[in-house]
């Protein structure tokens, strides 16, 4: 009797699942398909072909796929290779508290002709629940002073290290990373700064005092254990994260993912200090063979003469974790990180770590998130090429997520022995 199992059926999205099939004919080829419907009703699919062993079993932790959305030994491949029916759709969970993503797993006899319509019946299926919160995590909508966001609290008594979570130009309030960090023991504030509630869609300046308010708000919270606060930030959010670390001494740990290490777009202001944005060369925008737009050359000609746009990163007292996807086609993350690190080195500082991932693209998300090849940001462009090759990108996400948590714990949780 053919059986398909997955353990655990219900889990956090960043937890792996062990998928197995038994009761097959020895050495037969089967196809495993995963599908998911997002909150907008958009479908995502993936498939892989496996050959059963001599006792009619397929074990994704042991067996290599022959083909499909990935080839090789990838126990979580069916999840991170999910692709949208409409090519420019990014998978993003909006409601992180009340529902999981449901992933249908189906097992077919591979009787697959080259026209890829499976001709045989479904042999087994099951549904996985992939949650963005652990049981007991609470969410509080934040509308205090100017602050707009969502605060996630881990379950249990006691106090926890505090983290501010920042996304990029997409705008709005993106909560899925903050809810996961809370599930791992951090009080995490998903902070919006544009295009959400009464926040303007295109702010004219980046006002660091807004983010300072957020830091103070977090430190005041009874469940937050100071004195240091962390920041996890990506893309435009990383420009802000870097500036926070430079100007706000409460920031003791800053994770900067694929960001500019200088001001871009609009002036960046903190208490009268103004950093002008690096001018961009729009004529250097390129379009790839599939029509997706690449912005990573934008500052190539202007970066060098723009020292006034660079933050005095050497003044930061906290620690930096730079995370770089070397195949980022949206931002030249590798060069940006190198510039920042050079500046630190020249000033005799070694409060940084660089994790540079060959093959990873711009959208380095928590593990098993499918690689989004290109998608639109409404007011900017309809098909932005994010870059990345699927397999190294998936590996980078797994590795980086563990490192991010280790880094935050190391620099936010005081140890009993004296810190160096």
């Amino acid at each position, binding site marked *: 009797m053919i059986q398909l199992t997955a353990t655990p059926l219900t889990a956090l999205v960043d937890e792996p699942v062990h998928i197995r099939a038994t009761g097959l004919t020895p050495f037969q080829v089967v*196809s495993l398909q995963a599908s998911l419907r997002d909150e907008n009703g958009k479908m995502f699919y993936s498939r892989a072909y496996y050959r059963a062993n001599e006792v009619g079993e397929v074990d994704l932790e042991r067996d290599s796929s022959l083909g499909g959305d990935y080839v090789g030994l990838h126990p979580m491949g069916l999840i991170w290779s999910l692709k949208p029916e409409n090519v420019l759709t990014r998978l993003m969970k909006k409601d992180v508290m009340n529902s999981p993503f449901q992933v249908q797993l189906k097992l077919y006899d591979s009787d697959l002709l080259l026209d*890829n319509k499976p001709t045989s019946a479904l042999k087994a299926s099951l549904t996985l629940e992939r949650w963005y919160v652990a049981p007991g995590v609470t969410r509080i909508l934040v509308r205090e002073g100017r602050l707009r966001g969502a605060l996630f609290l881990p379950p249990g008594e006691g106090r926890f290290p505090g983290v501010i979570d920042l996304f990029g130009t997409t705008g709005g309030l993106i909560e899925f990373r903050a809810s996961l960090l809370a599930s791992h023991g951090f009080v995490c504030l998903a902070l919006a700064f544009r295009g959400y509630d009464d926040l303007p869609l295109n702010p004219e300046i980046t006002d660091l005092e807004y983010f300072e308010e957020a830091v103070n708000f977090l430190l005041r919270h009874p469940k937050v254990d100071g004195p240091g606060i962390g920041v996890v930030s990506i893309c435009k959010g990383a420009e802000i994260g870097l500036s926070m670390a430079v100007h706000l001494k409460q920031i003791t740990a800053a994770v900067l993912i694929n960001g500019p290490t200088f001001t871009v777009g609009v002036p960046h202001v903190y208490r009268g200090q103004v950093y002008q944005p690096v001018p961009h060369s729009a004529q250097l925008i390129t379009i790839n063979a599939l029509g997706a737009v690449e912005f990573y050359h934008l500052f190539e000609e202007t970066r060098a003469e723009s020292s006034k746009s660079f933050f005095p990163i050497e003044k930061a007292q906290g620690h930096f974790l730079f995370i770089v996807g070397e195949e980022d086609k949206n931002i030249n993350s590798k060069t940006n990180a190198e510039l920042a690190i050079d500046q630190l080195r020249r000033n005799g500082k070694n409060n940084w770590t660089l994790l540079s991932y060959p093959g990873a693209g711009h959208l380095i998300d928590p593990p098993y998130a499918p690689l989004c090849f290109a998608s639109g940001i409404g007011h900017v462009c309809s098909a932005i090429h994010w870059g990345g090759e699927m397999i190294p990108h998936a590996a980078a996400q797994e590795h980086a997520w563990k490192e991010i948590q280790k880094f935050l714990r190391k620099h936010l949780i005081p140890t009993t022995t004296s810190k160096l």
Partner: protein
Amino acid sequence: MFQLTATPASALADDSVHIQVTGLPPFQVVTLKASLKDEKGNLFQSKAFYRANEAGEVDLEQTLALGGDYVGVHLMGLFWSLKPKKAFQRLLKQDVMNSPFWVTLDLYDYICFHDSATVQPRASQMVQRWFSGPGIQRKQIREGRVRGALFLPPGEGPFPGVIDLFGGFGNLIEFRASLLATRGFAVLALAYIAYEDLPDKLLEVDLEYFEEAANLLLAYPKIQKPGIGVLSLSKGAEIALATACYLKQVVATICINGFNAVSNVPLRYRDLVVTPIRSGGERMQVHISGAVCYRHCHGDPRDELNRQSVLPVENAQGCILFIVGEDDECIDSKAYAEQAMDQLQSHGRSCGRILVYPGAGHLIEPPYAPLCFASWVRGFSWPSLWGGVPAAHAAAQEHAWGEIQKFFRQHLIQTRSKL
């Protein structure tokens, strides 16, 4: 006063167009856009960003594109980088006789990134791209079993005869045949599946059908005798290679990105039946865009078990030119062409030649055809990945077209003193 010129305004699709801009402020950055609507109303677009020189000129023969759909000096870049607005559409001219493709060229005096219905370009030109020249005749062919369209150059002839074969997805693709006819060949665009009363699915390749077509072509007045050429792509190239092996009427064969063995369905010629190497659907690979790469699905002709399916190229009486794109994501055409060449050499035959184009994909077409990286294929649930690196693919198309014509002239036109 800005001036945008494109010369010639009306030309064959395989002829280049010289695009220039004058009257700009010195060093002004501009956008040049091209757009085209195909016969189904699908929009194709391209753009490039240029900086004028000190005299306020942009000359696509000399000026570097800084960004957009291509970078560098590319005279015809706006044409071969045209992309469909709706993903996975392929640009294919259906009516090759009565109408051209109309390409609109627009100039903006700033970096014009988005398409706006309201912003007008500073200058505009239309160019016509024709797929047949003056005097070309098209005859619909419905004789015996043969189905297709014959293109004849004007004049007395005799003209070297060529059969043009596309891939296994049906219908009749005529644009390459009509362009080749405009270059002085009598070309029969031959359908073999899903066209008129031909079967909808290919259950076997019946070489006698292709022999009928070859004989039909040779029987036409004005066709050079005694032998014809075959120009072919993809599944058509596999069939063409078989005709080279078995039909004495075929004396010059060009195989673009094909297999060197019988694949998927059997090949029949009279009482001979060659069993196919079956493809393994389970080795398909899905590209990040969602298009499917079939490159790894084909069986290995070098496997002992597949020996009887390999085409006996050493039996070919004429000459064979293999044209191969190294970035072909549909089929590992380089490996198969090299195997066929090895086979020829090991039998002491010296009539084979191979042209390998780095960066070229599967759909190597006449010059300036836009690179189609992936497109929908009839009967398949998702798009097929063809591959190719745009600028390299464009260069390959230009070079290959010259080689194709040279090869046919060399092997099909009788000279007084033939060695």
